């Protein structure tokens, strides 16, 4: 699972859907891999407005990345700064969570991640 996806994932528990604590899910004991993908600059620029920067900052810190700037870069900034673009590409597209857990801060449920696949099926008491 790419870090990109984590920016859109929430807790699957119904009761958590309305809670602001259920997003983002928090990686725990995460093992990461880095892919080597060609930068798709246009996709990143188009994607930028859809990224929840606060959540991404939280995720990056929790995964051990250097802290992101408090504000998302502007499209122009990203366009003119290749390093920024590459860093964002590396974080969102090339970094995958292979093993570990994703934890909901609202209900505490831990979703296991194995071989890059998270299991969002809920135990019966949480359905």
């Amino acid at each position, binding site marked *: 699972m790419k870090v990109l996806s984590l920016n859109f994932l929430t807790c699957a528990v119904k009761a958590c859907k309305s809670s602001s604590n259920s997003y983002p*899910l928090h990686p725990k004991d995460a093992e990461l891999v880095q892919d080597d993908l060609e930068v798709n600059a*246009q996709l990143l620029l188009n994607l930028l407005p859809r990224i929840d920067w606060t959540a991404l900052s939280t995720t990056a810190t929790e995964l051990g990345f250097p802290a992101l700037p408090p504000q998302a870069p502007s499209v122009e900034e990203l366009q003119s700064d290749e390093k920024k673009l590459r860093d964002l590409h590396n974080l969102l597209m090339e970094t995958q969570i292979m093993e570990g857990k994703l934890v909901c801060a609202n209900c505490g449920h831990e979703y296991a991640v194995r071989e890059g696949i998270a299991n*969002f099926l809920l135990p019966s008491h949480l359905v």
Partner: protein
Amino acid sequence: MGCAGTESGMERRLDRSESSDDPSKLSASNGSPSAVAATATAAAGAAVGSSPREAVTLTGEQTAHQQNQREGQHQRQLMHDIVPNNSPASTGSHGTAIRERQDHVSSTTGAPTNHPGSSPNADAGADADSAIAAAAAAASASAMDTNAAESYEQQHVHSVYETIASHFSSTRYKPWPFVASFLASLPPGSVGLDVGCGNGKYLDVNRDIVIIGSDRSANLARLARDLKVKGTTTATATNGADVAGVADGLALPFGGARRRVDFAICIAVVHHLSTRERRVEGVRALLDCVRPRSGKILVYVWALEQGTSRRGWDEGTADQDQLVPWVMKSNNNNKKSKKQKAKEQEEREQEEQASNKKENDEAAANGGAGATYQRYYHLYRKGELEEDVQVAGGEILGSGYEKDNWWVIASPKEEEEGEEEGKREGYTSPSIEAR
């Protein structure tokens, strides 16, 4: 679009696995417990009634093998049980159809059980016949409680896909043009979901957008990841393609009040839910994932009206609730015939859900050649999908019929938006929800 390249890559992959098939392994697997169990399924497939009531105690942990055995054990009881219990609840003339089919089924299952490899069902042509023979107990569906429905789907949808995943995937590499054109129409930078992504064939159709796939089957989710995320090289990788993991369509780890996406596609999935209530809930779950007003969902389901298809179902002649067999293909044919069949398979891709091509050792290990697995389908009649989408709170933007399927494109209704915006005000996070 790197679509063509990726696809030919997949075809090469298929060719390789095909040629590396080891016939001795396949024939050996026929004697395996799973193959024997599959025989029970093939015979009991008919017991389609296989009634949700009977399945209540099944858990997600049970293997297809155990379920098949159980089904076999209960087969006789079901034959007695089903008709009296289901008939009163059946809808009009369909009740008769069900009884007739149960009779037909009884005579079939009364026959000695064939070895899977020698079963008539192993033949591709028998597929349609057994589909008819395997008419599901439609009427009972509405009476099911949630647990029973879940157990029924566990048995007749989830565990089947888990078992046939590899074989299924090998027949599913060509995106349906209509779905591809929907994805191509989305603005660059759109972020969306493929709920029930199967082997991920839509994840890299449009490289200018992000699609996050999920599937109820762990094996299919893994295949999607292998094919579209992990196995890709720098040249063919689609940055925007990902597989989040295993998720239930009725409890998706997306959306809610906090985080909406631009679109969600759900292709050939909702028809596997066994009650109308759950099908509506399935559509609602999709609507809950996308932005009010601008968000779009595309839902594709099998049509009842497919008189010109090989299966020949049609209004007035077929029940809307069916168990459709998936037949694992025997691998004893010579290579040429396999290739011919593979080609035919590709041509028929859009018309049918069943296939008979054996692809690899994993499939062989899961079920011997000729093993039959029954999948539950609800066949939508004209207008039904639109009704369900509206009941679920969707505003229909477009709908139609395409090659034996009904489709709808819809957005969450305006009034939901008001409610949604209200909820959002409570949040302090500067969540970017730019449109």
